[in-house]
């Protein structure tokens, strides 16, 4: 398989901050809103460079979403920033009525998603946000895998028209994708080709899946690994092409099994090309405090879980 290396670990939220600054310089219509988490969302550089285009909303997320919807008049492109929990569950009705149904060009950017925010614990570790957002008609849902890709996804959103949800996280993770690769919304990224099993991973689980592929290769198993950075719209063509070749699937994500990426893929395959599937995801549970790595192990979304899911699905093939 193709070899993946990285020179440093970086947090995906910093990729968002860098991308936001970049499009802020390019397009005067880009505005940013934050609910008193400027530092956590890495929006400080944008605030410093463009104070007139940065709107501090205070810890009042419902109002922030409404203000963003209102700001879209005259072609402004609002990017809201707060934790994933407060970006989705807390303001779901605001997003549903004033953004999605009204088809406003609001970009909802959410950090600290999933278990890997670590010590802050269950109240903050939202594992339901992808499901909530993908259910909304017309909503685009993006979950990039590393710093470079989060930056590229943020930049891509400037040209994208329509409501979108961008999910990223807190910890430093391997920054392995090529900074020069442009980000195409809705286009799956084939990381390595293989013939025995298709692995579809998203977000922080992409690197875990790379580690799993290396372990499996040593055992003589050839994995095809595809990064599904856009969960909606799903790249059905790429998924089906891969599965028609390998005839079995493992999905991997930092999210509840219910409503996540695995759910979307299972729905597609049950209709178009039914094959055995194993899902690496959190199994109907809330998180707790701990280091990101402790929690990923405890809740079954670490590298060994991807390895055993592949071994299991191959037995069912």
């Amino acid at each position, binding site marked *: 398989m193709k070899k993946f290396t990285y020179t440093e670990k970086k947090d995906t939220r910093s990729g968002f901050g860098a991308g936001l600054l970049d499009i802020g310089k390019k397009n005067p219509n880009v505005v940013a809103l934050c609910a008193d988490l400027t530092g956590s969302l890495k929006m400080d550089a944008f605030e410093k460079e463009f104070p007139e285009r940065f*709107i501090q909303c205070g810890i009042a997320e*419902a*109002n922030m979403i*409404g203000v963003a919807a*209102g*700001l879209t008049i005259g072609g402004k492109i*609002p990017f809201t920033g707060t934790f994933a929990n407060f970006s989705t569950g807390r303001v779901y009705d605001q997003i*549903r*009525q*004033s953004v999605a149904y009204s088809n406003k060009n609001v970009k909802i950017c959410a950090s600290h998603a999933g278990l890997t925010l670590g010590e802050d614990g269950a109240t903050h570790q939202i594992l339901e946000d992808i499901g909530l957002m993908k259910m909304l008609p017309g909503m685009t849902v993006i979950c990039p895998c590393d710093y470079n890709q989060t930056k590229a996804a943020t930049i891509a959103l400037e040209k994208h028209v329509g409501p979108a949800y961008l999910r990223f996280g807190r910890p430093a993770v391997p920054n392995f994708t090529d900074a020069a690769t442009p980000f195409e919304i809705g286009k799956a990224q084939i990381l390595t080709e293989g013939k025995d099993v298709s692995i579809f991973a998203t977000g922080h689980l992409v690197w875990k899946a790379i580690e799993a592929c290396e372990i499996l290769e040593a055992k003589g198993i050839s994995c095809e690994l595809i990064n599904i950075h856009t969960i909606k719209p799903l790249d059905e063509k790429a998924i089906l092409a891969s599965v028609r070749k390998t005839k079995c699937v493992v999905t991997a994500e930092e999210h509840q099994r219910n409503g996540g990426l695995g759910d979307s893929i299972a729905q597609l395959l049950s209709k178009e090309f039914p094959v055995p599937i194993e899902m690496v995801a959190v199994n109907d549970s809330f998180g707790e405090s701990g280091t990101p790595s402790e929690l990923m192990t405890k809740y079954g979304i670490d590298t060994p879980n991807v390895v055993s899911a592949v071994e299991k699905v191959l037995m069912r093939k």
Partner: protein
Amino acid sequence: MSISSIAFSNEIRKAVLKMVFEANASHIGGALSMTDLLAVLYSEILNINPKNPLDESRDRFLLSKGHACTGLYAALALKGFFDLKELDSYSKNGSMLLSHTNHKAPGVELSTGSLGHALPVACGIALAAKRKNKAFKTYCLLSDGELDEGSNWEAILFAPQHRLNNLIAIVDYNKIQSFGLVKEVLDLDPLNRKFESFNWNVIEIDGHNHDQIFEAFGKAKANLIKPSVIIAHTVKGKGVDFMENKLLWHYKSPSLEQYRQALEQLNSQ
């Protein structure tokens, strides 16, 4: 204007009554309580053009109490934003006139229904106008009951912080909400002092007196420092004596006999 605001309000009331009766719909009480406010806004205040409803320089009017949409639809149709015949389709399958305020109808700025949404959006519009040095004003009409929603109070904090002197909120204070008196469900009193303490310019009026309504908008527009709120004391079901101040008429739809009786009263006003 070809007709005075008072005659206009009577036309709105009759259209509201007909729509609610024919669709066997709800929320006539809250539509009638805000009718005079709408009539003055749409005949005297709002800078809008029915022939060019998306003109960038237009004033924005957002109806936050989306359930009272019949009043807004009637005002828009009477102003020529769309054909009066469209009102006959109200609430029917396939109609652009859904039974909660819908942006598919020309002249409607925002879909509303779930409460407490429009004031935050109005803040965003007003902020965009200020940043772009646009002179238009943003108006947002709220019910008293929906001031229970915390999202409104987030916006009420936000507007003075961002010096939104181009934002005018109007509260249709008819003292009745879905299933009880505001005082009994979740009391808002003293509403004027609440807004004052949040640093708003507060104007309190009789929401059925057209001169007072007109003057209030003048005062609100003249305040160059703060966002303004017009607390309009109103009567739920205003204009039809057996509906006035009756909780029943939040949800009830009139029978044929009640419809005829109500129409007769409105025809003689």
